[in-house]
């Protein structure tokens, strides 16, 4: 079943067409990687799916519902979690606090709950959220760092914390924007297993990544973007041998590691 469908999605910034008529679908339960040289429009696609940019034309559907152009928090409400290419943690807060905030949608009490914290219902909810947050931290091996300041974590840990925060909203679809960037080979291997475990728990994963070894090792399918156009789509072995893909990478100086 198609979870996310992009249908002829185009976005222009001034005179620049960053994404040009891209269509593909993400199937329930798969890991789909989006690859392409720098500036191919991968992050822009993510930002359109999550409502930060509004496509100039085209449709984005999630579970058959139109998504394109709605407010950014709507995507989360529909069950789409994401991480950011340039890490966007709540730097001044503790690790646990970051994940608790990520679990925002699992709670219901707003201002009333804030003013009446002694209500048993409010306390039960806080307890539930805390438990869930700790559980999510455990999934990315950060439970021991719960009380550290998010800004004090190492780069790789911060990337994992972003994943934990996105997991906290119990998404159906998880968008990972260059999750392995800046990680050493050991960390990448751990991350690979982590992402597999996330998929196995029933969460569909759409990821952007430059590290070809990582992409080839983890993806069920791959979509290749070049200059805003989808030039290839298929299982890793098909994409690896696709002449157009090779040309795209070599033509731009070969920043891939395939």
């Amino acid at each position, binding site marked *: 079943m198609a979870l996310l469908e992009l249908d002829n999605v185009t976005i222009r*910034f001034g005179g620049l067409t960053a994404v040009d008529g891209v269509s593909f679908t993400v199937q329930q339960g798969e890991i789909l990687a989006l690859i392409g040289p720098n500036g191919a429009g991968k*992050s822009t696609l993510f*930002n359109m799916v999550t409502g*930060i940019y509004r496509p100039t034309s085209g449709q984005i559907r999630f579970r058959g519902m139109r998504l394109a152009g709605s407010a950014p928090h709507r995507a989360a409400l529909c069950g789409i979690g994401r991480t*950011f290419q340039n890490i966007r943690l709540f730097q001044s807060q503790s690790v646990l606090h970051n994940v608790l905030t990520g679990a925002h949608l699992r709670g219901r009490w707003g201002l009333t709950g804030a003013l009446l914290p002694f209500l048993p219902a409010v306390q039960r909810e806080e307890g539930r959220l805390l438990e869930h947050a700790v559980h999510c931290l455990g999934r990315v091996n950060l439970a021991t760092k719960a009380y550290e300041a998010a800004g004090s974590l190492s780069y790789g840990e911060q990337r994992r914390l972003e994943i934990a925060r996105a997991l906290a909203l119990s998404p159906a679809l998880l968008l990972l924007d260059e999750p392995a960037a800046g990680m050493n080979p050991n960390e990448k291997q751990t991350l690979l297993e982590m992402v597999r475990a996330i998929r196995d728990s029933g969460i569909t994963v759409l990821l952007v990544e430059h590290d070809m070894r990582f992409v080839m090792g983890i993806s069920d399918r791959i979509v290749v973007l070049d200059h805003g156009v989808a030039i290839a789509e298929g299982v890793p072995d098909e994409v690896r041998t696709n002449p157009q893909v090779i040309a795209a990478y070599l033509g731009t100086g070969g920043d891939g590691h395939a």
Partner: protein
Amino acid sequence: MFLQQLINGVALGSTYALIALGYTMVYGIIALINFAHGEIFMAGAFVGLLLAGVFKLNLFLAMAGAMVFSMALGVGVEFIAYRPLRNSSRLSALISAIGVSLFLSTLAMLLFGANARGFPANAFPSRQIQILGAEVSTLQLLIIATSACLMLALELIVKRTRTGKAMRAASEDYTAAALMGINVNFIVSFTFALGSALAAAGGVLVGVLFNSVSFNMGLNAGIKAFAAAVLGGIGSIPGAVLGGLLLGITEVTGVALGYSSWRDAIAFVILVLVLLVRPSGLLGQKMQKKV
């Protein structure tokens, strides 16, 4: 009647424009609302008053002296209160700017007292003359002419000199300008100097126009000039001039229509409306949200 109001409005508006230019140039380069800019204007007015009143200098010399003093003050304020915060949050820099503004206006109150002071009567002997049926004072003409000359000078500096070119580069892209070997610290100081000099000239002109210089004149004039800068499109030099003139004309018209007790609200209503409807102003550029 119409021409009369128009000239009144342009005279008032050109003083707003002189102050607005400082806001807009500084904002263009370091994206800071220089909250103390109104106080630099006030300081210029006081120095002009001192030079003209106590040292009996000619009004133009007094204005030149005020401009030099304010340049130094503006550069000093930037060095002490803004430069250390260049990489901090915008909130911190703005709060620091508010601090400078409070400090300077209170200092002026302690030095010169809480009462407004006037320029000596002979500072500029103003006459009324008739132009196409409108009563115009030579003082208003002086203000308009002086402002026009200063703006022309600014235009020449920004467009024709090397430093001006560097200024425009820094306002286009601060980081890239730094990477290209432009000494951005110098450019920022230079921008503050230029803006402060214009504000001081505006201060002296306003002081003579209303025959009143007081410690708290900076806040209101500053905010109105800021409104003018926003109206024209913050960051845009012609925008600041246009915004200042429009604001001056609107205020004068409002007063002429009998809304004098609402006068101070006019600028703020314009400010709020422009921010809500078209935050990039009349001549400003739209910015793309970056993620």
